C-alpha cells in the first residue's frame, strides 16, 4: 500500500538526522595516551590518586580481560572494535574536582544548559526553570564535573557524588560493595570496565532513610575516539528508599564511540531502589554511520529480605544496544521489576532485556517490555527468568510486546525460562503488531497530522511502562519518543 510506504519514508528520513544533542563542546582536555595496556590502567588510577587496593583490583581485571573474547551471541552486527585505537581517559582541563559551581568551566555549564539539564541550584530553588527539585551529578567524558544539592542530602545522611570522590572519602563503603554484584570477571565488557572505569555516581542511603529527592546523573561523551566507562554503585541500607535517574547523550560523530558501563545496586532488608534510564546516545546517521556502541552491564542485588529493585528504561539512542538490567532475588520475599521501552530507527540494533534470577523463597518478578522498531532497525528482547532449587513459591509475569513501523524492520523475542523447582509459577505473554494505516487514517480524519497520529498510537502502546517513570521524567520521555520516531522537535 502506498500509505505504508509514505510512513516508512517519513520515519526513515527523520530522527537520525535531527539528533538535537549532536553538538560538540570545544573544551581543552587531558587525555591518557591512546591505546590500552597496563600503563593505561596505572595512569587512570594515578590520575585519581587511588589507594593501592583499587589499583590492584583494576590490574587483576585487566589481566583477566586480556584472556577474554568479545561475546557474539546477541543479534547485533558491527565491525570489529580496535581496542588499541581508543582513548581510555579524557577529562576537561582544569577540573581537579567539583567543589562548587563557580569553579566549573562555563563552557561545560553551557553544554548542560543546552541539554536542558538544570545544574544551578539557585535557579532551581528560585523556580526559574519551573523544574522540580532533583539532585544532579553531571559526568563529562571521564569525570564527574558537578553534583548539586550535596549539602541538603548530607543532612539526611545521604551520600551522593562521583565514585572517585567516594573512593577518597568513603573507601570502606566502596571497598565493601564494589564488584560484589557484577564481579570484575563477569563478562568481557564488565571486566574491561573494571580495569579502566573513570567515573560515575555513588549513592549511599543509610538505614531507614527515604531519600528526600530524586537523584539523577547525566552522562555526556564529548571527546573523539573516547570510550566512556562509568561505574555506578548504589547502596540502600535496611529500610531505605531511593529513586535514581540517568540520562545520556553524545555529539553527532561519523566514527563510533564506545560506552561500556557497569551499574551495581545493592538493596538490603526491606530497602527499595528505583532506577530509571532515559538513554539517548547518538544513534548514527540515516545510513547507519557513526553512533554509540552501548555495551552495558546493569545488575541489582536484592540482598535483603523483602527488598525491591525496579528498573525502568526508555532506550531511544545508540547504534548498538547490548543491555540487560537484571535482578538477583536473593532475599526471601524480595521483588524485581523491569519496565522497558526500546525504540529503534534508522539502522539501529537493539538487543536488550533482563534477567530475573530467583534464589530466595516467595520472590516475585515482573517484566513489561515494549519494543518499537522502525526504519531498517532490528529490535530484540532477550530475557531470562530462572528459579533456583530452593526458590519455592517464586513467581514471574512477563509481557513482551513489539510494534513494527514499516516493513523493513525486525522485532524478535528470545525468552529463556528455567525452573529448577516445581513450586514456581512463570507466565509469559508476547504480541507483535504493526501500526496500521487504518489507525493512522482514522486519526488524520479527526484532524491529527501523520506525525501526531504516530506519536499518539506509540504513546498508547508504551503507556504501561511510561507510568513507572518518575513524574518529572515521564513528560520528557514522552517527548523523546515523539522525537525519535518523527523528527518533530519539541
Amino acid at each position, binding site marked *: *500500500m*502506498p*500509505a505504508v510506504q*509514505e510512513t516508512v519514508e517519513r520515519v526513515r528520513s527523520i530522527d537520525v538526522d535531527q539528533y538535537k544533542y549532536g553538538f560538540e563542546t570545544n573544551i581543552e582536555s587531558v587525555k591518557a595516551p591512546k591505546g590500552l595496556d597496563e600503563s593505561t590502567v596505572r595512569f587512570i588510577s594515578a590520575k585519581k590518586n587511588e589507594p593501592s587496593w583499587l589499583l590492584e583490583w583494576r590490574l587483576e581485571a585487566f589481566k583477566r580481560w586480556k584472556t577474554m573474547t568479545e561475546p557474539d551471541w546477541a543479534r547485533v552486527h558491527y565491525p570489529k572494535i580496535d581496542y588499541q585505537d581508543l582513548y581510555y581517559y579524557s577529562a576537561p582541563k582544569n577540573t581537579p574536582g567539583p567543589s562548587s559551581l563557580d569553579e566549573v568551566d562555563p563552557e561545560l555549564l553551557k553544554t548542560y544548559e543546552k541539554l536542558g539539564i538544570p545544574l544551578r541550584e539557585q535557579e532551581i530553588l528560585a523556580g526559574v526553570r519551573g523544574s522540580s527539585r532533583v539532585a544532579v551529578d553531571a559526568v563529562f567524558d571521564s569525570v564527574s564535573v558537578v553534583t548539586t544539592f550535596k549539602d541538603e542530602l548530607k543532612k539526611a545522611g545521604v551520600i551522593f557524588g562521583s565514585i572517585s570522590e567516594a573512593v577518597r572519602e568513603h573507601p570502606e563503603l566502596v571497598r565493601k560493595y564494589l564488584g560484589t554484584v557484577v564481579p570484575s570477571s563477569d563478562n568481557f565488557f564488565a571486566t574491561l570496565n573494571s580495569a579502566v572505569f573513570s567515573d560515575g555516581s555513588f549513592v549511599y542511603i543509610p538505614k531507614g532513610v527515604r531519600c528526600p529527592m530524586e537523584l539523577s546523573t547525566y552522562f555526556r561523551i564529548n571527546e573523539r575516539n573516547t570510550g566512556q566507562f562509568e561505574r555506578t554503585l548504589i547502596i540502600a541500607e535496611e529500610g531505605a528508599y531511593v529513586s535514581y535517574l540517568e540520562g545520556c547523550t553524545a555529539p553527532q560523530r561519523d566514527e563510533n564511540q564506545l560506552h561500556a558501563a557497569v551499574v551495581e545496586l545493592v538493596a538490603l532488608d526491606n530497602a527499595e531502589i528505583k532506577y530509571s534510564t532515559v538513554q539517548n546516545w547518538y544513534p548514527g546517521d540515516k545510513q547507519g554511520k557513526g553512533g554509540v556502541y552501548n555495551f552495558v552491564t546493569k545488575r541489582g542485588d536484592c540482598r535483603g529480605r523483602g527488598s525491591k529493585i525496579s528498573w525502568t528504561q526508555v532506550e531511544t539512542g545508540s547504534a548498538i544496544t547490548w543491555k540487560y538490567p537484571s535482578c538477583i532475588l536473593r532475599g526471601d520475599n524480595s521483588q524485581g521489576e523491569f519496565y522497558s521501552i526500546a525504540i529503534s530507527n534508522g539502522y539501529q540494533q537493539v538487543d536488550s532485556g533482563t534477567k530475573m534470577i530467583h534464589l530466595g523463597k516467595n520472590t516475585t518478578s515482573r517484566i513489561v517490555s515494549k519494543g518499537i522498531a522502525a526504519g531498517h532497525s532490528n529490535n530484540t528482547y532477550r530475557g531470562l527468568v530462572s528459579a533456583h532449587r530452593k526458590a519455592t513459591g517464586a513467581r514471574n509475569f512477563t509481557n513482551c510486546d513489539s510494534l513494527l513501523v514499516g516493513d523493513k524492520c525486525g522485532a524478535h523475542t528470545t525468552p529463556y525460562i528455567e525452573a529448577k523447582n516445581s513450586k514456581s509459577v512463570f507466565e509469559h505473554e508476547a504480541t507483535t503488531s504493526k501500526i*496500521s*494505516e*487504518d*489507525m493512522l*487514517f*482514522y*486519526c*488524520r*480524519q*479527526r*484532524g*491529527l*497530522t*501523520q506525525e*501526531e497520529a504516530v506519536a*499518539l*498510537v506509540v*504513546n*498508547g*502502546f*508504551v*503507556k*504501561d511502562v511510561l507510568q513507572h517513570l518518575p513524574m518529572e521524567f515521564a513528560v520528557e520521555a514522552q517527548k523523546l519518543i515523539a522525537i525519535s520516531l518523527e523528527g518533530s522537535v519539541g
Partner: protein
Amino acid sequence: MLEIKNLHAEVADRKILQGLDLKVKAGEVHAIMGPNGSGKSTLSYVLAGKDGYTVTEGSVQYQGEDLLALQPEERAAKGVFLAFQYPIEIPGVTTMTFLRTAVNSVRKQRGEAELSTPDFLRFVREKAKDLNIDQEMLKRAVNVGFSGGEKKRNEILQMALLEPKLCVLDETDSGLDIDALKVVADGVNALRSPQRSMIVITHYQRLLDYIVPDVVHIMAKGRIVRTGGPDLAKELEERGYAGIETEIA
C-alpha cells in the same frame, strides 16, 4: 457546499466510481442508498482522502475549494467529518485523550486557541450527556472492547465535538439494535443546522425513518442512478435493489 462532477476512482486498479455526480447545498441532508459493492463506502473514503483511493477523473469542489488537493487532516480541519462504518480501535489511548488531541489539532489548524483542560472537560461532558454516553466510556481506550452501539455513539460524539460542516455517515446503522439506532439518530438530528450538510450512506431504509433526508439518491455501479425525495427510499424498500437495477439496465 459540495459539488462532485464526473468522479472516477479506483482502488488497487479496480474501477469503483465511474462518473459520479452529486451536489449538496448547505443545510441539506442527502441519503445515498445502494447495494453492496455499488461504491458507497469508496465515495466516503475518497471524500475523506484515504490513501490508496485514486481519483482518475473528475472533480470535487468543497466550499469553492478543490477538496482532492488537501491532506486528510486539512479536510478535517476545514469541516469534513466521516463517521466510520467500522470505527478503529487504538489500544492504550484513552478516549478522552484522543478527543482532546483531535479537538485541539483541529482548533490549531483553524487558527483558534487550544482549549484548556477544564474548558475541554466541560465541553465533552455536555456533549456526552446529550448522547447518553457514560463518563466511564471516556476513560477506556478508544473503541477497544466497545459494543457496536458504543462505537457508533463515540463517532457521533466526535462529530459533535469537531463541529464539522459536511458530515458523511457511512452505514452508521449497521450493527445497531433499534434502541441504539434511535439514540444515534437523535444525536445526528440534534446536529442538523442550516449551515451543516450531511450525506447519510445506508443500505437499508430503516435509518431514514429516524433521520429524514431532504434528498435520496440511489447508487449502482459507481454512479448515482436515481434521485428523488424521501419516497424514493420507500419505493426501494418495496421493490428491492434488483428491481431498480433492471429498470436502469
